[in-house]
Structures are given as structure tokens and as C-alpha cells.
């Protein structure tokens, strides 16, 4: 097990650096920090030289990432020009905000996905199953930003118009009140939850159906176990295995900052910071967020594979 983890980590490192390298080269190739100063040459030669020095523009584009790597391994992730703060501070602060949405959304969607797939599989082809399948198709077809916009208009404008109440805010209210935080976070959490439940429950239903119709479940029923034990202990455990990977990757994506949902609801998380950094472009911040998102993705991939082994003793990791 330990050797497996160590080997996995070691094999991931080159890919990790290759990915970061490409991000650095890609972002710097699309930008020209000198665009403005070039116009006023030779008057502002000093400023021009300073920028060349700062962004190492005299070096080849393929060499520039290494300087950044050199600082990064020593724990210096640079300074974000866009947000006017050190990248490590931005990551902590924004990452915290993102987690406020990501953690509840993940827990809620995992719980809902399990409940819905158990229901759909036990009552296959019932009216409820058809309704749920219909909704998950709709959820899959709906672009996230469109759903977010819809929720915003529905709760922000129409609902208030009809009832005079405004239960949820459509963007973050900055104060210390927990109630306000809850009111602000509900709609983005709802958006994230619905979108992932739609995908997970389709998958979970198929997986649960396959298990419920298998021989060992028939055996479990035949020997007189209660339906509750059969479904929740015997069937669910196997049906969850394929879902675990989906969850791990989904949670990693959520933690990395849901660019769209956070942008729609103007949530000060990693997503909007990332977009701001890309459009500026603020190379240090882009790299900082990339390194964070990539690490989270790798770690959760590994967690998924380890959980596989725990849930299914037939799978051996070595």
C-alpha cells in the first residue's frame, strides 16, 4: 500500500511539472506585458527595461518557467498584481471562500445522489423513476451558468415580485452575520449541487441496477435478510465503487474553484480570481491557482484509487 502511494506520487511528479510548465509557457505566449510601454519608447526606456527585467523578457519563453519553479519550491509563489497581495495569501483567503461553497455542495450532492439512485433502482420504471430520470437529463443538458442565471432571476426578482420576500441573496453580503452568509451561499451551493447530482444519480442508478439484479443479492434475499440490510449493506457497498471516482474528481474540481458558478454569483472564490488573473494576465496568480488545482486533482485521484481498494477487496493496489 505504502509502496503503491509512493510510486504513484513519484510517477505523477513529472506530469505535474510538465503541466505547470505548459501553463506557464501558454499564458506567457498569449500576452505582451510590454504592449503599452512599447508605444512610448524611447521616452520611457527606464520603465521598459524594468518590465523586461521583471518578467525576464530577455530570456526565451521556454526558460522563464524555471525561475518561477525555483522560487516556488522555496515556498515563494510570487505576488498577484491583480489582487494586490501575495499569491499564498490570495490562495488561502479565496480558497477558504471556495470551500464554503464546495464542501456543503459536495456533501449534499453525494447524499442526494445515493438516495436518488437507490430509489430509482428499487422502483425502476415507476413514475417517480421517470420523473427523476427526466430531471437528471434536464440537469445534464443545462449549462451551469444558465442554471445559475435562472436561479438568480427566479429568487432575486420574480420570487420577490410575487411574494414580497427575498429569502436568498444573489451575491455575497460582506459582514459577520452567519445568517447573511447562509442566505448568500444558498443559491450558489444549490447550483453546484443540482449540476453534480444530475450526473452522479444517472451513473449511480445504472450502477445500483446492475448490482441489484446480480446473483449475490438474490442469495441475500433468499436467505431471508431484511430488504433494508440487502439494499443498504450488501447492494450499496458495491454500487458505490464506481461513484467514488466520480466524487473524488468532482470534489477536486469544486475545491479548485468553480469558475462559472462563482462568477455568476460574484462569489469571491478562486474561480473569479482565476478569470481575473487570466484576462490581465497575472502570471504568478495563474500559476498559483494552477498548482493548487492540480495538486488537489492529483491527491483526490489517488484517494479515489485507495478507496477503491478499501471498498472492493478484490482490487489490490501494488
Amino acid at each position: 500500500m505504502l509502496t503503491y502511494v509512493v510510486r504513484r506520487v513519484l510517477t505523477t511528479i513529472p506530469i505535474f511539472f510538465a503541466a505547470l510548465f505548459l501553463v506557464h509557457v501558454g499564458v506567457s505566449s498569449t500576452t505582451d506585458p510590454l504592449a503599452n510601454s512599447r508605444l512610448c519608447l524611447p521616452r520611457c526606456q527606464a520603465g521598459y527595461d524594468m518590465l523586461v527585467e521583471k518578467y525576464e523578457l530577455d530570456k526565451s519563453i521556454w526558460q522563464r518557467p524555471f525561475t518561477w519553479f525555483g522560487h516556488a519550491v522555496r515556498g515563494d509563489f510570487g505576488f498577484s498584481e491583480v489582487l494586490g497581495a501575495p499569491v499564498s495569501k490570495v490562495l488561502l483567503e479565496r480558497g477558504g471562500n471556495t470551500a464554503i461553497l464546495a464542501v456543503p455542495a459536495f456533501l449534499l450532492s453525494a447524499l442526494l445522489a445515493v438516495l436518488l439512485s437507490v430509489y430509482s433502482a428499487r422502483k425502476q420504471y415507476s413514475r417517480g423513476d421517470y420523473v427523476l430520470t427526466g430531471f437528471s437529463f434536464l440537469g445534464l443538458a443545462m449549462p451551469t451558468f444558465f442554471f445559475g442565471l435562472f436561479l438568480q432571476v427566479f429568487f432575486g426578482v420574480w420570487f420577490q415580485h410575487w411574494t414580497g420576500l427575498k429569502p436568498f441573496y444573489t451575491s455575497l453580503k460582506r459582514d459577520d452575520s452567519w445568517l447573511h452568509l447562509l442566505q448568500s451561499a444558498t443559491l450558489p451551493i444549490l447550483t453546484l449541487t443540482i449540476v453534480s447530482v444530475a450526473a452522479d444519480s444517472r451513473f449511480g442508478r445504472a450502477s445500483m441496477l446492475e448490482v441489484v439484479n446480480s446473483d449475490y443479492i438474490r442469495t441475500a434475499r433468499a436467505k431471508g435478510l431484511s430488504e433494508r440490510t440487502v439494499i443498504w449493506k450488501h447492494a450499496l457497498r458495491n454500487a458505490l465503487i464506481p461513484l467514488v471516482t466520480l466524487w473524488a474528481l468532482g470534489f477536486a474540481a469544486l475545491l479548485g474553484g468553480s469558475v462559472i458558478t462563482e462568477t455568476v454569483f460574484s462569489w469571491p472564490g478562486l474561480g473569479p480570481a482565476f478569470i481575473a488573473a487570466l484576462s490581465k494576465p497575472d502570471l504568478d496568480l495563474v500559476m498559483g491557482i494552477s498548482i493548487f488545482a492540480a495538486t488537489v486533482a492529483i491527491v483526490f485521484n489517488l484517494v479515489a484509487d485507495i478507496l477503491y481498494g478499501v471498498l472492493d477487496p478484490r482490487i489490490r493496489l501494488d
Partner: protein
Amino acid sequence: MTELIEPVSGHGESRSFARLALARFTSHRLALLGAAGLILMVLAFFTGPALSSHDFDAVDIVNRLAGPSLSHPFGTDEIGRDLFVRTMLGGQYSIRVAVLVAFLATALGTVLGALAGFFGRATDVVVSQLINVLLIVPSFIVLAVFANRYGASPTGIAVVLATLLWTRIARIVRGVVMQYKEQEFVLAARAVGARPARIVARHILPNVLGSVLVEVTLLLGTAIVLESTLSFLGLGVRPPIPTLGNLIQQSKGAIDDAPLRVLLPGFFVVFFVLCVNFLGDGLRDALDPKSRRA
């Protein structure tokens, strides 16, 4: 392992796989619905602009922000351009982007997947690691970096999306090629002197046709959603060319007063993806080689 011999279904007549598949497809009601919806939509998008007397970029300040009327079925935008024509044309561009993405991603994925699966060793390592890198880099970086630079035109966006979306098909093709390349019929073809390209194209790839076809339909949906999402973030196809995505983007500020202007193009995106997913579901059932159900 012993093979179970399945009795031939029906009344002694055996039917070809293609006919079975067709029979299964036509009995899949949702898939037919999806196909019909898609055909209707394509017809509407491609004939719609010709049916209206308005031009997609004709400005009519007097009639700006008009609600739906006979002359302007979807109303007009803030400088009085007819939204019906713009939405239809936008749909046209969005579908073109999606089809191009599906084509490019399938071609790239099939070629790279087949190379990796057939030659194994170094080729496989390179392709697999390339896929891994694409999985690690947040897709938004790839999209944003390249969309910033090449994405202003529909073709540019399609190329950018295809460079991101080929990995699933590559993995499917790679798996199937690896699975089949040691089987007797492939060894037989090799024994009579067929070249690798011929073996892959004629003997192995027909086996992935089904699963790739399903993936292609799903790709069409993904491409349309991503196109509109990129537009929403301001990274998509730039005006004056309308797409469903940038139509939503342009009117989202006015969503409180004129929700219809946002909801209509959004509805077409959702409807398109729904149809494509239904179609994909039907194809998956119909092309399942293990199924003998008619």
C-alpha cells in the same frame, strides 16, 4: 472458458447486426424524439433567417428593445436588431462549431488512440501522458489561454475545444485496439501480410464504431455547452457573429426586464443537448454488440 451458445432469436431467421441495430433504434422512443428534435432545430436554424425580412445586423433604433411581435417574433435587442434572425443564425453558428469540434476531436482521438493502442511502448506512453497532462491542467486554463488568442472566430473556438475534448475518444479507441490486436483475426490479417495501417483501419476500427458514435453525439452536446460557457465568460466567438452563447452573454444584463431574451437562446442550448443525449442513449442501446434484443 466455455462460451455460452445463444439461441438465434426469432423464428429461425437470422438477422444482420445492422438490421437488429436499426430495429432497436427505431423502437427507442426517446432516441427518435431526439433525432426529430435535432432535425427540426437544424431546419429552423438554417431556413429561419431566410423566412424573416430582417437582416441579422440591421439596426433599427426606433424599434429597440421591442417585445415579441409578428414582425419580430423574439423581439429586438438594445439597438433594434431582430432577435429571431439573430437567434436562428446564432444557432447555425453554434451547430457549426459543435459539428466541427466533434469531427476534429474524433479524428484526433481516433488517430492518437489507435497509434497508442497498436504500437504500445513509447507511443503509448507519450499519448497516455499527454492525456494525463490534459486531465491535470484545469481545462479552463487551456480554454482561456487559447480562446484568448485564437478563439475570436467560430473555427478558432472549435479547434480550441477539440484540443481539449479528444481525450475520451482516444482512451476508448486505445482500449479497444489493445484488446483486439492480439486476437486471431488480426493475427491472421498480419500473417497474410497486411500493413499496420490496413489492419487498424479495416479489421480493428470497425469494432469501435459503435462506442465512438455514441461519444460523438455526446461531444456535440458538450461542445455547444462549452461554446456558450466560454461566451458567457467573454472568451467565446466575438460579435458581430452571433452564437447562442454570445446572445445570452449580451442580454444577461437585461435579464430582470426582458428575461425572454436570455431564456430563448438558453432554451435552444438546453433543447439541443437534450436531443443529442437522447440520441446518444438510443445509439448506445442499438449498437450494443452483446445485445440480441430486437
